[in-house]
Structure formats: structure tokens, C-alpha cells
């Protein structure tokens, strides 16, 4: 759901969210797969897969947290502003 104070067109918001979500998904899948491929090439199994997984998970989690955090903060800010506006009315 779009926070009420967000004035951007819905398509812009949707494409931005989609972009961030895809980046998180790709980074989580790409690094372990690359590690697995390199393990096969250099006979280092399973160490590069594990390393790839750690890097991929860190990057993916960071992107996921970024995806959720601003929306929640914006929604909280809007709720606070609404509350203070109601208090001023009284």
C-alpha cells in the first residue's frame, strides 16, 4: 500500500518496488550459484558456495530491509501527522 503523503504516480512507485525486489531476489540467488560454479571449476567444494551464500544473503537482506523500512517509516510519519492535526483541531 502506498503511504498517503506519497505524491508520485502509482506506476513509478510500482516500478521502484519491483526493481528493489528483483535486485534482492537476484543477489540472493546469483552469489551462491556463482560460488557453486567456481567450486566446480577450481575443485574447492563447498567453500566458495558457502562464501557466495554469505555475501548473497547479506546483500539480499540489506536490500529487503531497505524495501520495507522507508514505507513503514513513511506510514508512521503520516499517522503521527494525522494525530497531531486532530489534536490541533480539538
Amino acid at each position, binding site marked *: 500500500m502506498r503511504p498517503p503523503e506519497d505524491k508520485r504516480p502509482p506506476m513509478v512507485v510500482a516500478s521502484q518496488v519491483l526493481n528493489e525486489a528483483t535486485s534482492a531476489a537476484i543477489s540472493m540467488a546469483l552469489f*551462491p550459484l556463482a560460488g557453486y560454479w567456481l567450486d566446480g571449476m577450481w575443485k574447492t567444494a563447498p567453500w566458495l558456495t558457502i562464501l557466495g551464500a554469505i555475501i548473497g544473503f547479506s546483500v539480499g537482506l540489506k536490500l529487503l530491509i531497505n524495501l520495507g523500512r522507508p514505507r513503514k517509516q513513511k506510514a508512521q510519519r503520516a499517522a503521527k501527522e494525522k494525530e497531531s492535526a486532530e489534536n490541533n483541531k480539538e
Partner: protein
Amino acid sequence: MTMKTPEKFESFGYSLVLLSLITFLLWLVSIAPAYYFSGILGVEGLTLSAFLCLIPGWLAFWIVSRYGDASDFVIASFASTLVRMFFVLTGVLIVKSTKRYSEITDFLVWVILFFLGTLAIETWLTIKHLQATKSKSEDTTIS
């Protein structure tokens, strides 16, 4: 008339314990077929699969309770699905590279079973958790 979600679902610990308990029950039920098909190696693969699906479930609940709220249900479910898929993918890749389980019934079948089972339970618990949080915030607004 809408039914109110019990407050116990609001607790992060309650969802976590319930998910662990149901996964344990699923593991118990699957021991006999795993042993029948692949012997002790099958039970080992079954146990590994259970942990591989349970740990991301715990993590997903933490993400939902920490960052998700009722308006961000889509993102919360997306995050939990992504974390689960990441753990299972990494686990399968590592197990594949060790070449320990050669038969499909040694490991892969149990990973698929636990993946689908825990995903269903987790989605149900996440919906209940978000409904409970939402109804609490509505109660606070009314009062």
C-alpha cells in the same frame, strides 16, 4: 460480522513455537517412510531438510515482526519467501557438491516436502500475526 484473531498470534514467540512444533510433527511422521526408502541416510537427509526449512521460518517471523505491518503484508510475505528459497537453494547446492546423497529419496524429496509444508504453515501464521496486529491497532484507535 468479522471474526477477531486471537491475541496470542500477535506474539512472535507463539508463531515460532507453533512452526517448530508442526515441523517436528511432520518430521516424526516422515521418519518411517524415509527409513523404508533409504535407511539411516534417508533419516539423516530428512533431518537436514527439516532444519533447512525451519531456520528460514524463524528468520522470516523475525523479519515480519520487526519490519512488517498490516499494510505491508505483500513485502513481508515476499521477504519470507525469498529467505526460505535462499536457504533451501544454498543447502541443496552444498549437499550436491558434497555428493553425499545420490538417490532422490535420500534428500531432495524431503526438502520439497518440508519446503511446501513449512511455507503453508508460515503463510497461515504470518496472516494471523498481521491480522492480530491490525486488530490491536484498530482497538487502540477506537479507545
